[in-house]
């Protein structure tokens, strides 16, 4: 088990280095990095300063070293737009993002499990067809459009909820709902199909032969096996989650990471974009690591064989 985690950790680090290299190379391939790293109002003095700091006269390898050591120390440079250290800006934005993401994740997870299992066990019934339909609908309707329509309905027409911005609990309803809407359909389908596969298996037949009640067969024997397959596609779910988070923050004017990043993109504030990219990469890889550990916990074969 420990060995398994260490191997995964190593792979995570390698992946991170890969992403850092990628950013570094892309910046240099696209032309003079100074163009990206300076704002329109930078004085010649500042530019010269920046050049020295980046060591643009030095070899590529040395430049990368300076770039990488900076990253490790949490030095992402200064925002070109706000003239603040990027690290500080992230410190403000990150908790706001988590305030949306975590509840949305939990809600969609619980709903996905419950609905997915129910649909699979009542195959080809009204409920199952309903879940299938909602899943396809959810995966087809653009989330950003859905959010705007919700806004139109609940905030503009009915005036039940505030339009946007951060504030009291009522401010959370629509953003969290939107984000959950991004994740739910995919997860629900995965749980359902995983369950269907497992319910066909011989060990479920054996559990029935034992005379176990359906409740135990489903929630004990089937579910644990059914979530093993969806866990392997967790990476894709995560990618969707980030897309959802950014869009939600933009639409509801939520001061989180997504908005920070997108605004930086519009302003071509490269240090901020770069820092956000790396941070998101770290979080995604960290989540994947967590998924792998869960995987090992759920599937004893992995737990034993890799230790």
């Amino acid at each position, binding site marked *: 088990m420990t060995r398994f985690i260490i191997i995964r950790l190593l*792979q995570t680090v390698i*992946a991170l280095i*890969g*992403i850092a290299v990628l*950013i570094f190379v*892309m*910046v240099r391939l*696209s032309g003079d990095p100074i163009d*990206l790293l300076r704002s329109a109002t930078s004085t010649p003095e500042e530019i010269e300063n920046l050049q020295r700091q980046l060591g643009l006269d030095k070899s590529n390898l040395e430049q990368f070293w300076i770039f990488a050591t900076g990253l490790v120390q949490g030095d992402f440079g200064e925002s070109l737009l706000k003239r603040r250290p990027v690290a500080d800006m992230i410190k403000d934005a990150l908790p706001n993002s988590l305030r949306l993401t975590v509840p949305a994740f939990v809600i969609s997870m619980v709903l996905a499990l419950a609905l997915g299992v129910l649909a699979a066990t009542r195959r*080809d019934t009204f409920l199952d067809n309903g879940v299938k339909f909602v899943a*396809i*609908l959810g*995966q*087809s*309707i*653009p*989330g*950003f*459009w859905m959010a*705007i*329509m919700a*806004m*139109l309905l609940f905030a*503009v027409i009915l005036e039940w909820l505030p339009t946007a911005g951060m504030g009291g609990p009522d401010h959370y309803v629509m953003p969290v709902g939107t984000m959950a809407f991004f994740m739910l359909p995919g997860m629900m389908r*995965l749980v359902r*199909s*995983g369950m*269907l*596969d497992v319910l*066909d298996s011989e060990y479920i037949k054996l559990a029935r032969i034992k005379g176990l009640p359906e409740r135990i067969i489903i929630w004990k024997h089937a579910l644990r096996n059914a979530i093993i*397959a*969806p866990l392997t*596609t967790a*990476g*894709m779910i*995560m*990618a969707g989650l*980030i*897309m959802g988070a*950014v*869009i939600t923050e*933009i*639409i509801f004017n939520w001061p989180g990471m997504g908005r920070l*990043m*997108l605004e930086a*993109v*519009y302003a*071509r504030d*490269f240090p901020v*974009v*770069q820092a*956000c*990219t790396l941070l*998101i*990469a770290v979080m*995604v*890889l960290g989540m*994947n690591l967590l998924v792998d550990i869960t995987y090992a916990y759920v599937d004893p074969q992995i737990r034993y064989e890799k230790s």
Partner: protein
Amino acid sequence: MLSIMPNIEDKTRPKISGLSRRAHIMRSLTCIVPLTILSLLVLTAIFAPWLAPHDPIKVSMTERRLPPVFMEGGSTKYILGTDHLGRDVLSRAIYGARISLSVSLLVIAITASVGTILGIAAGYIGGRTEAFLMRFTDISMSFPPLVLAMLLSVILGPGYITVVLALSVLGWAPYARLIRGEALRIRNSDFVSQARVSGASPMRIMIKHIFPNVINPLIIVMTMAVGFMILAEAGLSFLGIGIPPPDPSWGSMVADGRGDIDRAWWITTFPGILIGMVVMSGNFFGDWLRDKMDPRLRQL
């Protein structure tokens, strides 16, 4: 002599499905309806210049935010109304089909070919090549395309190429993973070792034996990707890092109307419905195709 008998081992093991006639009709509807919608979309994209009543990027400041024809104040000149710059929503939507479809098809063509070649190679050759390729695939799959698109948009500047690149750079990975799994299964199958016994070369095995047997899953995934790619392009354009204005993209049309949602709902609503309808068609058709061709792939 022996006659062709139905293959008893397979056919007497009944498929577990108690589909009624009504469900059966519903099932075939999930093929016909989406296929019709998708065909219409393709035709619209091809014949956009003849179909669109107006120039999609022509601004007319005197005719801003005109409601659609069925509302009070609407006219047959602008059937779906005009946007905040007085551009015809219908014409923009028709031209938008071109962008959505071409981005989506281009990306699918690139990613599917790259993914299939890498997947078959990895699955057949195995060893270190495979191990390396698969770790690379895993990392690519977990990296959010949106973030990459943002990065590219800053570095290269927004544009058609940037969008295609952003979606392609990571998009091959799911194909590679799926095809590798299939290729691996087929490589270890008896008929491939039989081909090796017959003296077939690795190239012949990959082309004649492995490729024809991965076509089914490949087609299924490609069909399902149509919707996903249209959605992805729309998302990027909505965020302003996709197709830059004034070219009409459904995603940017939704974004354009966002600020006017309380006074001109049609600017946002129509392109949104269009995206939903097309993507749903792709998904339903993909679903139907999978049930028909390879129900094993339910996980997709």
